[in-house]
Each structure stands twice: as structure tokens, then as C-alpha cells.
């Protein structure tokens, strides 16, 4: 019981150390990766965000456009 604070303190040091080490290595790797990819795959840059559901939206839009075309053809 008497060592709870000391123990928890060590865990804090250890924990924050690991979290930072993890993220820091990740940052280094990601920066390096970005350079490599920019060098070897210069084409097809993507928008920085919002790529989540565009696949679906594109499909929907395509379906709608097709339907509209269909509708127009019927209408003629």
C-alpha cells in the first residue's frame, strides 16, 4: 500500500515515455514515407481529407444520373 504513489509514478514515466516514443517513431516513419512516395509515385495526389465515403457518393450520383438519363429517354 505504501508504495502505490511511487509505483504509479514509475508507470507514468514509463507510459508517457512509451506513448511519446511510439508517436515519435511514427512521425519519423511517416515523414520518410511521404518523401519516398512523393519520389517514386508522383502521380495521383489525393485530397488531404474527406475521402471517407466518396466511393458511395460517386456510385449514388452515377445511379441517379443514369436514372435521369433513363427517365429522359422514356420521356421522349
Amino acid at each position, binding site marked *: 500500500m505504501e508504495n502505490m504513489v511511487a509505483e504509479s509514478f514509475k508507470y507514468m514515466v514509463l*507510459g508517457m515515455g512509451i*506513448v511519446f516514443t511510439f508517436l515519435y517513431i511514427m512521425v519519423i516513419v511517416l515523414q520518410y514515407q511521404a518523401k519516398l512516395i512523393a519520389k517514386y509515385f508522383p502521380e495521383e*495526389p489525393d485530397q488531404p481529407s474527406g475521402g471517407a465515403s466518396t466511393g458511395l457518393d460517386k456510385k449514388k450520383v452515377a445511379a441517379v444520373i443514369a436514372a435521369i438519363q433513363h427517365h429522359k429517354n422514356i420521356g421522349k
Partner: protein
Amino acid sequence: MKKSIIAGLLLFFALFAGQATASEHAAAPSHVSATAQHTEEAEVHDKSIWELLKSFYKTTGIYAFTTPQDGVVNGEGEEVSSFHQTWGRIIMIGITLLLFYLAIAKGFEPLLLIPIGFGGLLANIPMANMTGDHGFLGVIYNAGIANEFFPLLIFMGVGAMTDFGPMLANPKTALLGGAAQFGIFGTLVGAAALSQFTPLFDFSLQDCAAISIIGGADGPTSIFIATKLAPDLLGAIAVAAYSYMALVPVIQPPIMKALTSKEERMIVMKQQRKVHKLEKLFLPLIVLGLSILLLPESTPLIGAFTFGNFAKESGVVDRLSDTMQNALINIVTILLGLGVGSKLAAEKFLVGDTLGILILGLVAFAVGTAAGVLMAKLMNKFSDEPINPLIGAAGVSAVPMAARVVNKVGMESKPGNILLMHAMGPNVSGVIGSAVAAGVLISIFN
């Protein structure tokens, strides 16, 4: 109209009561007396319909709420005290109604607070025993929470919904998602100290760890850790975690403003570069690879999360990724909420510990926010590019609420200074950060 209905009902009762009285052997509509009746089968007694009503009265909730019994046990076979049978349950029902109010009228994380609240409401119904092994909530709890499966499925869905683009555009802001985890570890120390040196709390170190994860501002991670380290505290920890995540717009701004000058809050950040889709594709594998190398204990959480993200970014399994983001996460959210709610039974929740959990959770949240902001200030000092310290607050995760709050506070100081995408970097890295922190706690305590 009303009078005639009442008259009709009385007539109906009287009619049958008369006939029923005439019958020789009456039944008692409750478990206890049903057993009794079998043993006294031989006896012939003249029980009127009024006696039948009286014995029915003993099966009502009104009776149960007003007349506590000895020996009443909950779903896990633990005895429930008189207080918890009566006022305890009534207070808990009131609390679940409060959760509904907050979810509906105030928009507090309704997707989880409504199922959790309803689960809590059901868990406090006397005699129905829904938290037992064969009860509605007990079946759910055993199927997916006791084995920590549902939080992982949720995390998988969250992974499939997360866009790491903003973090990839400016990777070094990911460190802010690390600083904010000081909310977890700082609180761990604080809780241990208060448990050891004051009579306020009396938590074990393991309990302290489970509580401090609230500072990670991540629902499924909190539930996962609580189930593993301190299942009895699960209800309070889950409610605290989601409540404080919902309270981000209330808790964070004062801390953010107190720790930054107006000039700092007005800092404009450079527009983000475009991110190649291959960077997004490799990211989940890099994150998982690092967690395999450094901290295998974190891989259940990070594995589920990166699986969802990888499925999404692969672009070839859209139907699976869509299902993770919709049908599957919704079904699991409903069940997880109900199952977690089962821990809001009065005898589990209305204990001294709960208040401690709520207080420590709030502290953890605030400390995490502060640590994020301070780290951002430090980084801004040493960085070549300007970093607005406000985005540090988004490091706690609480995606995307915290990033939105950053944006709002930034706009207050300098209208038109859109920080949203800049804050999303720390925000999503905060999810990774708290999963890593969770891995550390598992590796220590499990």
C-alpha cells in the same frame, strides 16, 4: 365518459369477484405461493378474489420499491441491500432519465448515452432480473462485453470511419496526441496518492488505472480497459467517459483560454499539403507494425482499429468497409450500450467509488487538455512553422468534437482562422495515443 368507464371496470371486477369467491380452490399468482400451494394441495381454503389481488400486489413493482426484502440477490448472486432495493433503484431511474434529457435536449453523445441509459433503466427494475445470466441484459453482457469483444468491433468501425489525411499532412502534430495522454498517467498518480494518503478514496492501483483511462477520451478504449481491469466499475467509468466526451464544449474552452494568450490563439497555420493515397494505405500497417514491435499488448485495440482503417483505405472492399461503418457498428452500439447499462444497477453504481470516479475522470480530462495545449505551446516555440496551441487540446481524441471546439475557440479570437483540419491531426493521433496508453496499462496490470 370517464365515470362510465370506471363504473364499467368496477362492475367487471365485482362480477367476477363474486363468481371467483364461489370457486373452491384459488390460485396464488406468484412464485413463492405457487410453491406453497403445491405442498398444501390437500387443504381446501376459501380465498376470495380480494386475497388473490393482495397476493398479486406482492408481485408489483410498487410493493418491491416500498418493501425491501432480505436475501434479494442480483444477477451475479450478490445480495442487494435495502437501500439499493428501494431509494437506490429510484435514484438510478432518475439518473437514467437525466441521461436521456442530456442526450436528447443537449445532444450529449446520444448514440451511446441512450442505449446505456435504457440499459440502466432496465437493470433497476425489481424482480425482472434482467442482468441475470438468462436476462435480456445478462445475455448481451456475456455474449460480447465480458469477453471484451464488442468494444473491439466498435473500434474496428471507428477505424473504418477515420480519415488520417490531416495527420499525414502534418505528422509532427501527432505528438500532441501523445501529450494529451498525460491526462491518463497524471491522474493515475493523483488517484494513487489520494487513495494512499487521504481517506477520500480507497482505490487499488488497478482501479486507479481503469479510472484514469477516462482521460483518454475514448469510449471503446475505456470500456475495454474497465472490463479487463475493474469490471465492477464499468458502469461508472463508461458513463463518465461518454459524459465528459459529450461535455468537451463545456470543459475544454476555459482551460484552453487560461493557458494561451490571445496572440497565440490567433496564430494562423500553413495550409496543409496534399496527401498521397498510398500514404493513407500504408498508415494502418505502420501503426500496427509499431505496436507489434513496441507493445504487443496494445494490439487487440490497435489491431481492430487499423483493420477497419485498412479495409477502408484499401479501396477494394467497400462493401465490408461500409458494413463496418453502418450495420455492424450500429448493431454493436445498441448491444454494447444495453450491456454496459446493466452495470448501472443501483447496487453497482450507487457506491462511494462512483463519486470518486466521476471526479477523477473529470480531472483526467482536464489534465489531458492542459497537457495537450502546453505541449503545443512548446512545439510552437521550437517549430519552423507556426503551430496554434489550441490544437493541442484536440489531442485528447473525442473525435471529432474536440477538433470542432478548437475550431470554434480559434474563430472567436480571429474570425476566419479555420483550424478544423489542423486540429484533426492531433485528434486522430489521440486515438492512437490512448490505445497505446491502454496497452501500457494492460501490460502492467493484466
